[in-house]
């Protein structure tokens, strides 16, 4: 993959080096600004809230009235 990129980039050695730098920078920007912010919260290790979903409402805990 990297060999193919190197061969494909135009402009001799200076052009190839510049092309690599641009590609590397673009990849880092994509990872840090799009991919990682999306993936981070999906991982479980920094969940800090107490979930409110299983909370029984006042009605759920009220004792049943016998007929």
């Amino acid at each position, binding site marked *: 993959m990297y060999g193919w990129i190197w061969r494909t980039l135009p402009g001799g050695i200076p052009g190839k080096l510049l092309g690599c730098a641009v590609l590397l920078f673009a990849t880092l920007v994509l990872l840090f600004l799009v991919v990682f912010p999306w993936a*981070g919260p999906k991982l479980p290790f920094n969940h800090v809230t107490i979930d409110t979903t299983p909370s029984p409402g006042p009605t759920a805990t009220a004792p049943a009235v016998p007929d």
Partner: protein
Amino acid sequence: MARGLGQLFITAGLVILLFVVYELWWTGFTTKRDQHRLITTLHQEWAHGVTIKDPPIGSAIALLRIPRFGPKYLFAIVEGTSTADLIKGPGHYPGTAMPGGLGNFAVAGHRTTYEHPFYSVNRLRSGDPIVLETAHRWLTYTVENIPGTDARYQEIVSPSDVSVTFPVPDQLDPAAAPTQRVLTFTSCNPRYSAAQRIVIHALLTDSQPKSAGLPAALDGYRIRGT
């Protein structure tokens, strides 16, 4: 073919390493920027006498200082506890009491990543002050067991134990009428895990107008606007 596969694995490894750098370092950088903006906005609102009755989700509602963590420790508490809110800073559970209010002012915060405002909450001890700054008042809460309830000043609970945020904390009845002014912090426990939650309870012990100067707990602090 084998060479291409090797390159793929090396690339994947580098991306994972970069992700660790992102989580541990970059998220702190973005949160610091958000905090700076929130604190500036809050100071502007206060300077212009703007008081917002029902703060919108994601906006700053009060400033938090904890002397045990040093005079540089300062965070704006935002309204809301969604992922997007907690990225900005510690977040107030909507529907729980407001700062200084009767009932339970409950706040969630990151213990790792995103500038980890609650990194050291496990170091808080009974008697430690937690100081909130609002538009007009200094509110000093003291970390302690909540009288008349089962709420200890530090608790390790299950992630679904919602009763710690009830108006009367650690009671089964979420509708029980509160008689005390409580503050509750929740964060993950242990660090880098989500298996449990660490909970800190504190009781309002002092409330004074800002015109009366700094509260005793902030002796030696230099604070903007005072």
